[in-house]
Structure formats: structure tokens, C-alpha cells
């Protein structure tokens, strides 16, 4: 399934695609990794990959699905491999500028709980709420069936309804 905007992507330049989609990819990654600087870097990493093969990617039915999939894969890989390295960078005083403001405590708590979910549940939640994708679009990004997406979201909501309500009670 491709949207009208996706179908026009094969005609647009990488630069305009990059500028239009960048903040949306940052938002997806930011929800998954917490660190604003890391989110910006991972988003740019994603677009660097896209830029290298833009002629091919721009011809895909859904180039946006491709960059979203690569972004969540890179975020997952970052968490799997690089979290400790990132902390080492901080320890050594690396320059870690970010233009992304901090989230409110309430907002940060939500994403902290989301990040505690099993990985695929967290990805489904972020793609549904942050990227505002349909079940079919999420399935395309996650390379799975819509049934699996619904299952991931259902389980995530079940967990979050408990953990976030516990948090609300503790802070009220």
C-alpha cells in the first residue's frame, strides 16, 4: 500500500526528502533511545544510508517505510551494542550537543516505560503513536504481518496500562 506522498518521492530530490522526513525519524528514535544527541545522530546515520543509494531507495514503493525500518533497526542496534560506549563518551567529556529539548517528566516517564517493553512491542508502540502509522504501515516497516502488529500493540497496552497507572498513583 503506498500513499500519494510516497508515490511522489521517486520524483523528488534526496535533499527535500531528507529535510521533510528528518524530524519524524528523530522523533521515532528519540522515543526509543532517550538520548537526544544519540537520536539525532542515529537519524542522520539513517539518512546517510539512504543518501548513498537514493536512486534505488527513491524507486521503492515506500521509501519512508525503508528509512523508518532502518531507523528502528539502528536504534535497536545502538541499544544492543553501544549504550555502554555512549556512556564512555560522556565519561571522557565528548561533545554531545543536541538541539532537542528535554521532555517533560510525565512524557519521559511514558517513554521510559515503553523502552522497558520487549523490543518489538516498543517499536510497534512508537510507530503507532509517534509516527501515527496504520497497522498495515507498521507491518510494512517491521516486516511482519498486521496480526503480529496488533498482538504487539495489545500486549504493550496491557503492560502500559498497569505500569503507567502505577506511576500515576505513586506521583499523585
Amino acid at each position, binding site marked *: 500500500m503506498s500513499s500519494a506522498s510516497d508515490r511522489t518521492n521517486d520524483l523528488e530530490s534526496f535533499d527535500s526528502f531528507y529535510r521533510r522526513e*528528518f*524530524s519524524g525519524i*528523530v*522523533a521515532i528514535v*528519540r*522515543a526509543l533511545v532517550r538520548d*537526544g544527541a544519540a*537520536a*539525532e545522530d542515529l537519524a*542522520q*546515520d539513517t*539518512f*546517510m*544510508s539512504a543518501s548513498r*543509494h537514493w536512486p534505488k531507495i527513491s524507486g521503492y514503493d515506500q521509501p519512508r517505510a525503508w528509512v523508518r*525500518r*532502518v531507523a528502528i*533497526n539502528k536504534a535497536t*542496534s*545502538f541499544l544492543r*551494542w*553501544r549504550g*555502554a*560506549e555512549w556512556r*564512555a*563518551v560522556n565519561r*571522557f*567529556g*565528548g*561533545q554531545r550537543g*543536541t*538541539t*532537542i*529539548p*528535554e*521532555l517533560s517528566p510525565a*512524557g519521559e516517564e*511514558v517513554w521510559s516505560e515503553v523502552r*522497558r517493553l*520487549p*523490543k*518489538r512491542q516498543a517499536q510497534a*508502540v512508537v510507530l503507532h*503513536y*509517534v509516527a501515527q502509522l496504520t497497522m498495515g504501515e507498521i*507491518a510494512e516497516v517491521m*516486516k*511482519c*504481518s498486521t*496480526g*503480529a*502488529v*496488533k*498482538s*504487539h500493540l495489545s500486549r504493550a*497496552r496491557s503492560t*502500559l*496500562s498497569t505500569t*503507567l*497507572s502505577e506511576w500515576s498513583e505513586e506521583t499523585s
Partner: protein
Amino acid sequence: MNKLEQRMEDAAAEVRQVSRHAHPRDLGATRSRNSARLAFATAFVVVIAIGIIPFLTRGTDQVPLGPIGSPGSVPSTVATVPTPTTAPLPAPDLDCSAAGMPQADRQPDLPEVVATMRADIVRAATSCDYEALEALAGPQLLTNFGGGGFESFYTWRDQGDDMLDLMVSLLAMPHGLQVIEGQPDIYAWPAAFTYDSWDEIPEEELEALRELYTDEELRQSEEFFDGYALWRLGITEDGDWKFFLAGD
């Protein structure tokens, strides 16, 4: 809209709003900036880049596989597009990262027993069937350099990152052949693992890897190992699932 939905929508709106402050940088400059930043952590990188994962405890056991670049390692690139063609399974009640992912397409040049094992691993993983996976694994499976076996899969699951989707993604990539004298040949995914040096990895295979890893992770693998030393899966020519691990 119930309270949870409202809260999720509010949190999502906020993260979208703050992310609008992020501006696309010049991509050429990004690579330099990242490299400079990460140089601060170089002393930690060798240990961390490959060995940080808590469940990958490095032991003294020798893995019965040649290192990347071993003389007996013979690449044999086969498939060209890492995209399975079979439709995803409906998986509404399954709960693992590979649930509903596509089944394995056929790859040319695989012995029947290897192709069968590969398809069975994908089928078990996408069905979240740990019993079936464990039965396929057998006692010879290596999941870390300390000799870890299938129990690592339970550990990964308990830690919230069951690794099954990564494993299925790797098995959809082109495979290579690792030849070590005196041992059964091993069919390995991704093929990148079986090249003698980083420079031999074809660009299209690197590009497929960039969909799974950050550029920095791949750069570190190149710099420290002159080869692909990240996650890979191997099946012997006899059809035994030999390893699913990372590092060197």
C-alpha cells in the same frame, strides 16, 4: 479515548514537537563529527564494541571456527536480494520479536539438509516456538565464546531483546561458505562473515548490513577485525546448526 490512550497521545505529541527542533545537518560533516566524538572512547571500544553484551562473556574456550580472514575462509555469495518472498504468517497470538516475519525464501546452492535447517529455524523463530528451536539447536550450538548454548536464547528473551528478529533478518541475507581444513564446511549468514577481508565485501551486502547496524558499528568491525565480526549464524554442511553469535 481512555486514560492510557490519552496519555500515549500526549506523550507522542510532545516527542514529535521537541523533535521538530532537530535540524538536518550536512551529512558529510556528520561522519567526521561522529568519528571525532568516538575517538574519546577508543580505549573502551575494543572491549565494548564487540564484547559489551552481558550475555557474551568471553571465555577461554577456543571456538572451532577460523577467525575472519582465515586462509580457509572461502566466500560464496549466492542470493542477491535479502528479501524473502513468502508471505508473512498470521501471528495474532504469538509473542516474540520474529512473530509474523516472512518465511525463508529458497537460496540457490544450499545443500538440501542446510536449506531444510535454515527454513526450520526461520519457521520456529517466526512461530516463537522455543521448544522447536531448542530441538533444532542441539548440544553443538554456540551462542558465545564461553561455550554458551541454547540457554542464551532464554536469557535474551528474559532481558527483553530475544534476538529472534535479528536472526531471521540475517538468514534472509546472502550466505557464504566457510571452509576450514579438517572440519565440515559451514554455510554462514550473512555472507559478509566469510570474506577474507573487509574490502572484499560487496557494496550491496554492506548496504544490507547498514539496514541492521549503525555505520559506526560496521566501521569498528572493519577497523578492529578487518572483517564482519557482528552477529552471524552458521549451519554445517551436515545440516547441524553450529553457531549464532557475535564477536571474535
